């Protein structure tokens, strides 16, 4: 069963090509992580999946009536807009107290219902966003660098929560992340993106793939690799752009 299928998808902004010839299929229950350097088109890819961005070429096929839950990268709520967590979760459509309570509980934010959105900490805010995405009982859960701004234990706990949610709902999860080592442990499939799909597969496979190492360096066990490679790497899809030459360690 395919929930979402992208085939030969390209996205261009003006003369700039953001994504080219991307193929991606999502099946229920799998956790797919998209990794890639800044500007590699990760967020654009997610926005195509949720329907916020129209592809310039190629096709997006969604299973009829597929329910998508989206956790944005970050959400700025203007301080002039008063908003309780409860009210926030009832947008755009009214949701019963029970459904809200369950979603908050599942997201590990059970006690926050009457708080003002503006008063939440970073971790609490992300959990509320997760709860919001869970309201529709999603078949596909999409997270765009949902742990940005959280500390290491905070984001590790958040990803554990995601796995729990997946186990309970059986939904497919697509996430974009910078925290490679944290995310890879809980992924079924990793896609390494840099304008096109450089390589994909099981986390161990991708971690040892030359294309992945070319983008992120080989020592990703500890801290993040701030290492960018020297050569113009080439592989089957053809990657004809320069990568910067710099070692910052």
């Amino acid at each position, binding site marked *: 069963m395919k929930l979402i299928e992208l085939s030969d998808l390209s996205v261009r902004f003006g003369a700039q090509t953001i994504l080219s010839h991307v193929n991606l299929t999502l099946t229920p229950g799998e956790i797919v992580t998209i990794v890639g350097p800044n500007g590699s088109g990760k967020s654009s890819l997610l926005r195509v999946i949720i329907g*916020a961005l129209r592809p310039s070429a190629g096709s997006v096929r969604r299973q009829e009536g597929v329910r998508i839950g*989206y956790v*944005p990268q970050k959400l700025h*709520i203007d301080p*002039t*807009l008063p908003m309780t967590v409860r009210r926030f979760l009832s*947008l*755009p*459509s009214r949701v019963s107290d029970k459904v809200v309570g369950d979603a908050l509980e599942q997201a590990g934010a059970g006690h926050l219902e009457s708080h003002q959105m503006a008063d939440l900490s970073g971790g609490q805010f992300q959990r509320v966003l997760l709860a919001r995405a869970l309201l529709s009982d999603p078949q596909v859960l999409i997270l765009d660098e949902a742990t940005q701004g959280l500390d290491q234990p905070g984001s590790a706990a958040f990803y554990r929560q995601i796995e729990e949610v997946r186990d309970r709902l059986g939904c497919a999860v697509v996430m974009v992340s910078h925290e490679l080592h944290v995310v890879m442990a809980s992924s079924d499939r990793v896609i390494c993106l840099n304008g096109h799909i450089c390589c994909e597969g099981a986390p161990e496979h991708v971690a040892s793939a030359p294309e992945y190492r070319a983008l992120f360096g080989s020592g990703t066990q500890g801290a993040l690799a701030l290492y960018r490679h020297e050569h113009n790497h080439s592989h089957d899809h053809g990657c004809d752009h320069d990568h910067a030459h710099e070692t910052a360690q």
Partner: protein
Amino acid sequence: MSFLDDFLIRAALAGIGVAIAAAPLGCFVVWRRMAYFGDAAAHAAVLGVALALMFSTSIFAGVLAVSLLMALAVSSLTAHGQAMDTMLGVMAHSALAIGLVAVSFVQGVRVDLMAYLFGDILAVSKGDLAVIWGGAAAVILLILWRWSALLTATLNPDLASAAGINPRREQLVLTVALALVVAVAIKVVGALLIGALLIIPPAGARHFANTPERMAALAAVIGGLSVALGLWAAFQFDTPTGPTIVSVAAALFVVSGVGGALVKRLG
């Protein structure tokens, strides 16, 4: 003989009608940080007045058409990556200036421009009242109908898209409502002060609101109160009515700010 024969009652009803329509709309203007957008549409209204006089159509129609055009132009330009504040500055002031020049060409009619710049609420006729309440009702219905979608799109456009809401369409709804409010408010507070009626009541209401709905309702109360007190004060002290109404609103804003700070400290 009906109670509408009293010009003060007509004035109060006109003002309150505008205040109620402006309140929820003003909240969106505040939340979306488009305060200057309201000003631009209002300044363009002067050009609308000039065109209406030239072609002898109704002022309401002229103002509505020009502020609608202005708002749509600004919306679409910013969607194509122009800097919002610069575009607004260019268009608002050009429209105001061209409007003032155009008015000077209108022959035969002694145009009291002050009435359009600062409003002439005491001269509201029964016909004006019908237009004002009709426009206000249309704006309120439009906003009520789109309320949830508008709020979601205001929170975050991507969140809206994920929920099947088109944020561009919601922006358009706001734009149309804004033009409508400008058109009905020009008689009440005038082109130069419409922005005040949009912004000040929601800004005052913010201190006491914990949900968007409460903020909008409270803004309507503050707006209505400003109109009533402003009319009374203008009558009492023989001051220009539109500016007096806005001054009262500003005073209420200060009072609610102090009150809000006290509530926060005590609570």
